[in-house]
């Protein structure tokens, strides 16, 4: 990638730099690279699914392997691809947008990344060690507690470690927004991406601990013989469903809200207009997040909760359509009367509106309980959540990457290839998933290894598979684009005539972001300065020493210890000798914590003279 091209140091030095870095911009690169890698793995799994379902009674994959592939596709895409890609964007842009020099806890930022990374690796190790988890990404008990082999154990340990990293990341961004805003950057002057990331972080904070508990219960049932989900000892499997979805539903808003923020920023930049209804947008986002915690049981309409509970959750779910609708109309109103530039970043954002509206439309449809009895666990639901997650999150990530690539890597992605990516992916996406609405209603349940030739589902599945190849092609073109771009000319600081603070500093910014903290005088601060003819931000402080945090290898080591301990947990069920690995790994991690607390980390200062020597 372009990282290597910009720096003329040895590979070892660059690697060491990235492994020990606490700089949010480099951690963003790490998240992007790791998330991208897992996105490709998850995509490969998706292709295997679609090949298996290309024709009736296919035996391309075995039944057991197919369940492993669907489980890993879902788990990888949600936890190991979408989440880190969103964290990549937050890390790259959020501190810049609020005029901060770094996040609140640079050390924890690095720790969060390495926990996620090692958790992801641990989960994927299962492929080579006797088989991946096969109980679906939702891991419903007792299928998950009774699943033979170690697949589900890898799921539990991998997600537990990765989840801890995510929680740390969420808290970090919360504190960053609360404490690190530049002078004048009041809450109601923050760009929508920052706002949405802030609210998504609140969701992370309150949703992930539920997952932690759920995974803990599952882990103890599988590894230590407890009876939470063992019906013969009084256990109850519905508890898992509740805990999983109390986490799982906010999780889907964690996946979408930051991208709502991206679209808001992209629309207003390329329409050259201030975001329409800024206040309404902020409060709509909050309302979506709040309601997101009240609706988890709509994933459980067929569980038998009774008509009263079902009706309440149904209406609460429908209510989410109102703030979402407000956002859609505000985006349209932002574009209305604008001077719209259509480039790759904008294409993805524009494609989001109809796609996500269809996803929202089917969202209201599945919220209607008595109708959901037909949709539930059918391909209709598969179509619905791909319309919102791909049509919202993935479109948003592509839009954001085209938009912020210059800020992250100092290069502009090529337009021609960008458009090729967009059109193949966009057409492929609708080919793949639109037809699935009908497949579901025609009687095809989700997670089906085969359908039969007499079921009347052949044509729809074939179309779907063809679409998937278009999407795969689009993704490959994007990777080529990213590699080729590394050789292009350097991007200017403000290539899009931007409105927000990240465009007020170099592309990519110096490691201290802003030589002097900027003074913010309103919403879209850079736009204000430009429209008043100054063209650049007024500093809020005289040029002075900058305090910077030290790099550290400890986050990597801490996560490595937990990774090793994970294997100990998994294999001690076979042989108690593995307890030594478990304890060794934990002790190692604890040791790194002791080192961290015994050694004061006071950071270092960049002197005024040094700053003066560096050009703007």
């Amino acid at each position, binding site marked *: 990638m372009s990282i290597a091209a910009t720096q003329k140091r040895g590979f070892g030095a660059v690697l060491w730099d990235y492994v020990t870095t606490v700089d949010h911009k480099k951690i963003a690169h790490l998240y992007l690279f790791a998330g991208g890698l897992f996105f490709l793995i998850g995509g490969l799994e998706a292709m295997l699914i679609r090949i298996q379902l290309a024709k009736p009674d296919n035996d391309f994959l075995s039944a*057991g392997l197919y*369940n492993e592939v669907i489980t890993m596709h879902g788990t990888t895409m949600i936890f190991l691809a979408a989440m880190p890609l969103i964290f990549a964007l937050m890390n790259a842009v959020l501190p810049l947008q609020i005029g901060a020099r770094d996040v609140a806890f640079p050390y924890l930022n690095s720790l969060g990344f390495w926990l996620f990374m090692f958790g992801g690796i641990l989960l994927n190790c299962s492929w080579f060690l006797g088989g991946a988890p096969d109980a679906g990404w939702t891991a*419903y008990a*007792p*299928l998950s507690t*009774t699943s033979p082999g170690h697949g589900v154990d890898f799921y539990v340990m991998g997600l537990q470690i990765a989840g801890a990293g995510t929680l740390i990341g969420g808290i970090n961004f919360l504190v960053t927004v609360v404490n690190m805003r530049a002078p004048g950057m009041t809450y109601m002057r923050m760009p929508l991406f920052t706002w949405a990331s802030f609210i998504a972080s609140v969701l992370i904070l309150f949703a992930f601990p539920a997952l932690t508990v759920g995974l803990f219960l599952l882990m103890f049932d599988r590894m230590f013989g407890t009876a939470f989900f063992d*019906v013969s000892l009084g256990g109850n*499997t519905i508890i898992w469903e509740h805990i999983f979805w109390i986490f799982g539903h906010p999780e889907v808003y964690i996946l979408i809200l930051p991208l709502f923020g991206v679209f808001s920023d992209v629309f207003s930049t390329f329409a*050259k*207009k*201030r975001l*329409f209804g*800024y206040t*309404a947008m902020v409060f709509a986002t909050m309302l979506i997040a709040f309601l997101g915690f009240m609706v988890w049981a709509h994933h459980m309409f*067929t*569980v*038998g909760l009774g*008509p009263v509970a*079902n*009706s309440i959750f*149904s*209406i609460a779910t429908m*209510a989410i359509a*109102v703030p979402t*609708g407000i956002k859609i109309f505000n985006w*349209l*109103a932002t574009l*209305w*009367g604008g*001077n*719209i530039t259509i480039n790759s970043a904008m294409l993805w954002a524009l494609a989001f*509106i*109809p796609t996500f*509206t269809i996803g929202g*439309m089917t969202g*209201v*449809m599945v919220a*209607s309980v*008595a*109708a959901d*009895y*037909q949709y*539930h*666990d*059918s391909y209709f639901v598969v179509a619905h959540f791909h319309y919102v997650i791909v049509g919202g999150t993935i479109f948003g990530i592509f839009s954001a990457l085209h938009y912020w690539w210059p800020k992250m890597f100092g290069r502009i992605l090529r337009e021609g290839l960008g458009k090729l990516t967009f059109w193949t992916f966009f057409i492929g996406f609708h080919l793949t998933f639109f037809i699935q609405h*009908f497949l579901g*209603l*025609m*009687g095809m*349940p989700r997670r089906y*290894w*085969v359908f*039969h030739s007499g*079921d*009347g*589902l*052949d*044509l*729809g599945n074939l179309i779907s598979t063809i679409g998937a190849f278009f999407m795969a092609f689009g993704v490959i073109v994007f990777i080529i684009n990213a590699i080729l771009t590394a050789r292009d000319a350097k991007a200017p600081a403000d290539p899009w005539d931007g409105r927000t603070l990240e465009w007020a500093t170099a592309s990519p910014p110096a490691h201290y972001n802003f030589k002097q903290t900027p003074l913010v005088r309103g919403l879209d601060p850079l736009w204000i300065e430009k*429209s008043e003819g100054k063209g650049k931000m007024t500093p809020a402080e005289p040029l002075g020493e900058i305090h910077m945090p030290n790099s550290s290898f400890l986050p990597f080591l801490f996560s490595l210890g937990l990774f090793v301990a994970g294997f100990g947990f998994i294999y001690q069920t076979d042989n108690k000798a593995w307890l030594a690995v478990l304890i060794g790994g934990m002790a190692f991690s604890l040791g790194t914590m002791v080192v961290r607390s015994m050694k004061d980390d006071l950071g270092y200062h960049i002197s005024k003279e040094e700053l003066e020597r560096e050009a703007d």
Partner: protein
Amino acid sequence: MKGWMGKLRVLTLLGSIALVLSGCGRENLSALIPKGYGAETSLDLIILTAIVMLFVLVIVMILYVTVLIRFRKKKGKEDFVPKQVEGNKTLETVWTVIPIILLIIIAVPTVIATFDLADTKGAKDELNVDVTGNQYWWHFNYNGQEIQTSQDLYIPTGEKVYLNMKSSDVIHSFWVPSISGKMDVNPENENTMYIEAYEEGVYWGKCAELCGPSHSLMDFKVIAVSPEEFEQWVSDMQNVDPKAVAEGETAQEGQALFQENNCMGCHAIGSSPVQVGPNLTNFGDRSKVAGVLDHNKENVMKWIMNPESVKPGNKMTGNYPTLSEEEASKIADYLLQLQPSEITPESAGN
């Protein structure tokens, strides 16, 4: 509500046929061609919500296309800086209030239908069937009728049949799309739902909750026959003598093998409550072998000799002595002549 919804449905169906080349899917499987009360109730709601939501989609699309045409950057006006609009209270109120009204239009019928479909108060006086979900087959115990059967659920048309559902292992979900929406079959509690088929037919049933490798092979059939035929089926099933000697030489040898190999340890014939494996009382009348294979001797032998090749992860594999092809053939002959009733899937007009 049903009246005008009926007409509307015809229109919408025509529309969706045009939309999807493959039409509405296979009859007796597709939820788009309802043949029972639950499926009809659901489809009415599906159509209502789809129409309301399409209305929203159309408005969004009109605005969207207009924006794209009118406000794209024009030649010679590249540097035009639009007016920076903060917002508009009236507009914002409009697009908050209208969706709320639309949602109320959807929510009221939703709640009514939800309570309607959950109303199992009449269960006591009607036909009750205890349904057990197992990896990867279904067991049906006709409550108070001394009838046990598996895989094929016979019901009378035109009346509500109450299903009390529980799982013996993992969570399953009972789904017969053309008759009714689905309900989960949990290991810890009994869920009750009712189904009602309007006309005779063999309806495809599917498991809709991931339950293991053979989740997609856990098919079953609901066979709806007229109430008179159902009466007869009930009495035929009640009069089965599990010890009756089979007809035909090979079948008798098969019966002996069936006993020697202790197949009854798991499989009951007659109304015995044994249900480690499927009840075989009317095996000869089944519509499918193992839920997914065509019903013929070849497939029965295939199943008996190597069940793993048909349903990966099933509980029969490895739990009985290996059988030669000859033995399997004899057992198949025995099983296929287990036809206690005149009433078969053919009676349902398929």
